[in-house]
């Protein structure tokens, strides 16, 4: 049995430039498979990292001759749902060459919509319904048997004599510390590059879910809707285990900047305290970034100085909207003042700040978006990551946004293209306002000089900001002309 983890040729978010990151889902699943079923052979083909086009991909797959190919992501940052047409096309090309190879997809976007997507995608043999950690290894093990019992593999959608079926619900993996560390050694680590410039760049993923469950969040799409709001069942790797991973990445793979892609890293104060203690004790030099929530950062504001010493150079937290009514509707559970103070506290401690904010809520009109931008501009983070409402099936807000969806081409479902209109704005208006806001933010005298040149911000943060500044025109083309980048 030979399993291939395939990252087909793929672009990325326009604002991130030529950003080539490890697929953290593949790295984790490869590790699980290796530890739990060592008899299964594992291969990795990251076409994006190796700069391989489709022809080269097919040649390489023919040479590897796998029995099972897996494609999927844990992270929205790979390109939100714009990954889906890419994976479908890769599967189609592969099947044209070899009908017998089995293809499975899973993770982000697929996890909540497995049977629906499978019905529309004959190129896939399996889609994992919910969490991938155990299901993929079990599927591989089952397929290695002479007479596989597919219905016995929980959390799976599959074809049975022309019909799509689903297996039983797969309960969540309880203790993330029981998972092996991702199998970085199988991946071309030297090829990964952040924001077009940062070498020795690694993305990691140390927790699952988020206890806050914001209604717009696309993270929900990782999880089987038959569960009990599984997205909100927050599970973590312990601080010690996180630092084990940082240490491994620094000492063995030379990592200099680790971007922790957990949707909500700082839920628990003891984990942050533990991270500081362990990182300082082990004398790590690696710098890192994590995402969290403003109220948690403020709860831990007394830790920011030590966190900076322990390697945190940049963090992200969401604003999304600035009026109480919208914040309440989307269940953001923050205040704008908390976000503002977090920026101030981080800046005092030389920690770079990234704020996400959104446009495209059903009630958005031009005034609402301009007011939102004005407040964001006043808060003045180092990076403002604008996300346009992308109502993937599986997120709580989708039913109410569904009537406003006007763009069905998934290659544009990447946060950077308007795919919905609002009650008051056309899709074109929304794209125009997004392009305007992005340019306004990244051309403001004073801010530009701070984020590109100030020594108070770590070089890696400046390089990330540079990517946003450089891509303002390209972002506008995506937002207003539909140019595709993922």
């Amino acid at each position, binding site marked *: 049995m030979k399993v291939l983890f395939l990252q087909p040729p793929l672009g990325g978010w326009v604002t991130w430039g030529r950003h080539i990151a490890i697929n953290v889902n593949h790295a984790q699943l490869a590790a699980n498979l290796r530890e739990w079923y060592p008899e299964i052979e594992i291969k990795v083909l990251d076409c994006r990292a190796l700069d391989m086009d489709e022809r080269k991909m097919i040649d390489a797959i023919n040479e590897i001759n796998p029995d099972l190919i897996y494609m999927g992501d844990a992270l929205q940052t790979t390109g939100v749902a714009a990954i889906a047409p890419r994976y479908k096309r890769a599967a189609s090309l592969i099947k044209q060459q070899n009908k017998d190879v089995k293809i499975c997809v899973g993770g982000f976007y697929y996890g909540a919509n497995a049977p629906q997507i499978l019905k529309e995608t004959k190129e896939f043999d399996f889609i994992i319904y919910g969490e991938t950690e155990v299901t993929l290894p079990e599927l591989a093990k089952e397929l290695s048997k002479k007479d596989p019992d597919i219905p016995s593999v929980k959390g799976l959608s599959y074809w049975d004599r022309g019909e799509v079926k689903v297996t039983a619900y797969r309960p969540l993996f309880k203790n993330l510390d029981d998972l092996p560390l991702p199998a970085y050694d199988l991946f071309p680590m030297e090829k990964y590059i952040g924001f077009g410039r940062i070498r020795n760049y690694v993305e990691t993923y140390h927790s699952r879910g988020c206890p806050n469950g914001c209604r717009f969040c696309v993270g929900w799409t990782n999880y089987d809707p038959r569960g009990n709001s599984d997205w909100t069942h927050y599970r973590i790797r312990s601080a010690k285990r996180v630092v084990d991973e940082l240490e491994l990445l620094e000492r063995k793979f030379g990592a200099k900047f680790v971007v922790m892609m957990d949707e909500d890293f700082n839920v628990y104060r003891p984990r942050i305290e533990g991270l500081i203690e362990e990182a300082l004790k082990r004398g790590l030099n690696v710098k890192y970034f994590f995402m969290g929530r403003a109220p948690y950062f403020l709860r831990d504001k007394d830790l920011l100085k030590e966190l900076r010493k322990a390697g945190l150079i940049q963090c992200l937290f969401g604003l999304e909207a600035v009026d109480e009514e919208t914040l309440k509707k989307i269940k953001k559970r923050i205040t704008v003042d908390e976000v503002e103070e977090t920026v101030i506290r981080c800046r005092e401690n030389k920690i770079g700040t990234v704020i996400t904010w959104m446009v495209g809520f059903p009630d958005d009109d031009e005034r609402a978006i301009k007011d939102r931008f004005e407040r964001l501009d006043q808060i003045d983070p180092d990076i403002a990551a604008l996300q346009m409402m992308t109502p993937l099936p599986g997120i709580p807000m989708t039913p109410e946004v569904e009537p406003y969806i006007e763009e069905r081409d998934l290659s544009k479902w990447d946060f950077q293209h308007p795919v919905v209109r609002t009650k008051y704005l056309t899709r074109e208006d929304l794209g125009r306002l997004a392009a305007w806001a992005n*340019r306004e933010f*990244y*051309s403001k*005298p*004073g801010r*530009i*000089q701070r984020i*590109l*040149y*100030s020594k108070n911000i770590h070089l890696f943060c400046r390089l990330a900001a*540079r990517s946003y*500044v*450089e891509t*303002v025109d390209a972002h506008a083309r995506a937002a207003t002309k539909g140019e595709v980048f993922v």
Partner: protein
Amino acid sequence: MMKRDVHITARDLLNAMQFREGDLGRIGILSGQPQRIEMCLEILGNPIKNFSAFGYTLWTGEYKGKRITVGNGGMYAPDAALVTEIVCEGGVDVLIRLGSCGALRTYIDIDYVVIAEAALRGDGVTNYYVNDGFVPRAERELIEASSSIFDGKNVHYGTVWTTDALLRETKEIINRVIKEGAIGVDMVTSPFLTIANLYKRRALAILVVSDNLITGEMGFFDIRFFDAEREMVDKAFKLIEAIDA
């Protein structure tokens, strides 16, 4: 009828601000863009704000043993004239303008540097200071000193045309000033050099190219422009280090 020769002079303004002789450095850097001043202030040691009026602020600090004054002013010709006159009156001997310009040659790209050797006067301010035939000029020694710091194919020396009407840079006007030798266009250099010349001060205008009027390329928000702006500030201080002042 008005009895005084001039309603307000630069000296009046300085006095109103409790100015004392020696407050300003012998070298002054002026720029219309506040962010360039901020970048200068990051380099300057112990800057003290010693003039502030009408939205113009001058700071004086130290750099490599020299006292330097930096200040905003020079977005447009009238405010460039006002601030230039104030610093000249306040005792600044060497004036360096850090600005931007549009290029009037295809080979001068966004992020290149134009050093103005002279100005063509298309502004309305200098008519109040000099006669029609007057040609404002940068000081030769400063130009020569700058050539060892601002060097390479991305730096061009020549005449800059100053206009007050950004949105009336028509084909007829632009082709005429090109024929008269202009390689760049801005909104400040003419009054800046004119007033420095009248006060017999040493002056130089260093301009980063923000756009190109021949190719139509706009680079006002281009990262190459931002980077060049940053580099211009750093090199201006190297120039200050190199000159005898």
